């Protein structure tokens, strides 16, 4: 899901840098209000976890590979705005040091995996869990949070790939950037994730939520935030 340099036109990557910048600045402002020194190790561990989990390329036999991102469980554990920063830091290091994802595409990749994914995952979790603090309902909500989050993020990535031939072609009519149209790019990205990689994401989300509920239940952001009148 890491878009390399050259696959997106400037008409796409510049605005997406802008969108990600807005989310980064709001996230930092929100964290400034709530963040204290004891949160730093958890933020660092979240970013490290996301970095490592993305290295586990999962194969579709005879086909392609993909990976989980970890943004869903990070959003559940630390809140979606903190997840924006944790996963963005990971993606920026991956692009600059390891060439995984392009420099020009940092804004786009952060938008897909560090903005769309944590907010969708968090929303799905909040919506489905209701008031459950344990049991099947909570874990189904956790699975679907990871599953839907990554699936939506991959669909958005597919759209970004797929609109390139519409945006920029050379005088000979050939695409200048990512060459495949929406009708190819969106199903390719969405289906491979829905088939396998999002399932992996969902399982990871469930396992980690279980671990934290057992060992540090007070640290789970999504269960500690009370909404409405107490």
């Amino acid at each position, binding site marked *: 899901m890491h878009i390399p340099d050259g696959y997106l036109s400037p008409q796409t990557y510049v605005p997406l840098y802008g969108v990600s910048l807005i989310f980064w600045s709001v996230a930092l402002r929100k*964290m400034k209000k709530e*963040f204290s020194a004891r949160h730093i190790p958890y933020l660092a561990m979240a970013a490290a976890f996301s970095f490592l989990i993305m290295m*586990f390329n999962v*194969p579709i036999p005879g086909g*392609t590979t993909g990976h989980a991102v970890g943004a869903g469980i990070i959003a559940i554990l630390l809140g979606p705005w903190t997840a924006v920063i944790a996963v963005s*830091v990971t993606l920026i290091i991956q692009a*600059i040091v390891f060439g995984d994802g392009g420099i020009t595409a940092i804004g786009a990749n952060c938008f897909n995996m560090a903005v769309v994914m944590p907010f969708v995952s968090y929303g799905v979790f909040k919506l489905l869990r209701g008031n459950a603090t344990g049991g099947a309902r909570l874990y189904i909500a956790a699975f679907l949070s990871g599953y839907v989050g990554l699936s939506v993020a991959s669909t958005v990535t597919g759209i970004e790939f797929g609109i390139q031939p519409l945006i920029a072609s050379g005088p000979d009519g050939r695409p*200048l950037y990512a060459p495949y149209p929406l009708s190819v790019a969106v199903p390719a990205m969405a289906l491979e994730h829905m088939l396998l990689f999002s399932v992996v994401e969902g399982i990871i989300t469930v396992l980690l939520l279980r671990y934290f509920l057992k060992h*540090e239940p007070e640290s789970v952001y999504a269960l500690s935030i009370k909404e409405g009148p107490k």
Partner: protein
Amino acid sequence: MTKSQKKLWTGLFILAVLTPLGIILPEIFKAGDAWGEWGPDKLEKLLGYMPEGLKRLAALWKAPVPGYNFSGEGASTAVQVISYIASGLIGILAVGVLIYLISRLIVNNEK
């Protein structure tokens, strides 16, 4: 560091040591590149031509450790495995430093 944090860090280091599974399993199952992440040469083969803009932008940045691999395309599996683990550890360190710097900007010391 609390005991529980120590346990979590240990888990992360174990994860780093296991990362080579992420290159070994795709090899065993003959799975190719991730969709949309083909290198310029591979893409040219797939398409039969090279998109002009893509060619220009693809060479923009030379990453110090491209593809989590220290010794280029033809590296032996052993070198790739060691590179991958080392990259995982460098990754932990690099995100840690960046998070620390960001945290210094946002942590309010009076709290």
